[in-house]
């Protein structure tokens, strides 16, 4: 793993196009799972809202965006220099 050519060696992910490929793969898989809700596969759930098509997908997406945006605002209040306590 630590051969001398590491600095020159190009890795698969060094190519921006490959990073994009990973993203497209994710979009495709997401689309596939979202489309699964067109079928009535849901059983034994506890709340009515869980049967809504796309509930889990939207909830996951919105949660994470809200989490990060809220945390960014929080940082404005809480961020201090690294040696604040020293």
């Amino acid at each position, binding site marked *: *793993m630590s051969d001398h050519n590491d600095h020159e060696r190009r890795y698969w992910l060094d190519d921006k196009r490959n990073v994009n490929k990973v993203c497209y793969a994710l979009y495709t898989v997401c689309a596939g799972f979202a489309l699964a809700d067109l079928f009535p596969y849901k059983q034994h759930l506890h709340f009515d809202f869980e049967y809504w098509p*796309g509930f889990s997908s939207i909830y996951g997406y919105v949660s994470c965006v809200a989490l*990060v945006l809220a945390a960014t605002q*929080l940082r404005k209040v809480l961020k201090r220099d*690294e040696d604040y306590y020293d």
Partner: protein
Amino acid sequence: MIELLPPGAILILGGLLVPLLPGRLKPWAGVALPVLGFIHLLALDKGFVRTLVVFGYELTPVRIDGLSLVFGYVFFIAAILGGIYGLHVRDNVQLAAALTYVGSAIGGVFAGDLITLFIYWELTAVTSVFLVWAGRTKRAARAGMRYLVIQVGSGVILLAGVILHFVDGGSLEFGKLIGADGRLGSAGIGVLLIFIAFGIKCAFPLLHNWLQDAYPESTVTGTVYLSIFTTKLAVYALARGFPGTGILIVIGAVMTAFPIFFAVIENDLRRVLTYSLNNQLGFMVVGIGIGTQLAINGTAAYAFANIIFEGLLFMAMGAVLLRTGTCLGSELGGLYKTMPRTAALCIVGAASISAFPFLSGFVTKPLILDETASGHHVVIYLMLLFASAGVFHHSGIKIPYFAFFAHDSGKRVKEAPGHMLFAMAVMAVMCIGIGVYPEILYRVLPYPMEYHAYTTTHVITQYQLLLFSALAFVFLQKTGLYPPELRSVNLDFDWTYRKALPALVRGSVSLGRVAVGAILVPTRSLVDRVLRLVYQLHGPEGVFARTWTTGSIAFWAVVVLCGYLLYFLAR
């Protein structure tokens, strides 16, 4: 003979002897002693109870039952793997502290009465602080001191609670302490204090900050040990004493939600993991609050799974720290190029904590979620779902992404040492093993149950939740909305006792000085004046201090006697 030793005693006694071993053998004691201890535990039967009468009080130093066994098993497994992970360590302090600490935590889990529990409770505090101090930096020294004050404080509160509980007519036996109504309000003050003591060690909201403060200051191996035992001992204690305590549902839900905001903006990746740990404890606490047999099983199973995957994550970050000398997200990135195995193992841990299907989180967390839903706690259920998505975000994606991918830091360090990779690989295999064959774990849970984690609904909805969280991450990264990793600290509740309280004390002292000055100065000048007058009268030159000759005294005596004679004659 073997039954005379409580589980964990081998580690405590052996740990104290480690410094006497020759250098190269020392780290092997960290593996051998937990193995011996584990064999010892396996030799004891389930249902084994040993009682002891001390000063007329009946104590139960050892009680082995379903609940204690789950925690005992996983503690030993984690201790063995921690020992393997730390095979490069030669430091007496770390080795002895780690072993005695693990031994005390195990002892605590098998304590059958509150006095024994208290002893082990304090032992975990005083042994583990040496792991923090082993960081050997000024920061570690100070964080360790704060940690010690809080941990010992928890023990003192526990003892006070136990005494009050006993005086109130309660039993010393460590069983269910909360009443059938599950309300703290109707419990005695003793039980309330015990609850607070457990809450401190379990890092309840606002009592939590010792965790994020102290753990990341420890060494590569120290933090791995710390992350496992103290908080899970507290979870065990809560599960034993307070199952079905309603308030725990709310406390736990808050615990799952608020640390993840901090985790998103924290730069030190090991500190991110402590926030994540805090969030994970929240799930367990909710399970305890619900308190049904299935929920307690869920808590025990989740604690088991969490120790493995969270331990794996801490180990991976420890390996990064060992090789690069830093764990700051802002300084890392691109490490997958030279540490591919560590990266891969870290991703297994990250996917497990996120509860991806076919990994251990997926077959354990739903036990708690299902019971929450069955109890019709809609808001709590939605909070837990939010926290589950959040876990994936900060532990599942952020940790591996910023350490091993993200922007290339240009660091080309060596792969982690073989023994570390081995320990991590075993943990990763356990994550997958439990995920694929959950019955292995279900069989050791406290209550028998029939549970099928793999239903079509569950698998698909879980994938939806997680994949769309990943999608959110990609969206935020591409649009530049994701907060960059910055060298900084973020204020948390510890600000109150690290900044506000000292400032308050300093303020009160100077205010006090002003106040004292205002009263003292006039008083002192008055006293001075009185003293000066007394000095004038009684001092060396004073009227009352003059010495008189014998002759003058005799003269005045004669005058007085003559006066009296005249008065007598005249009468």
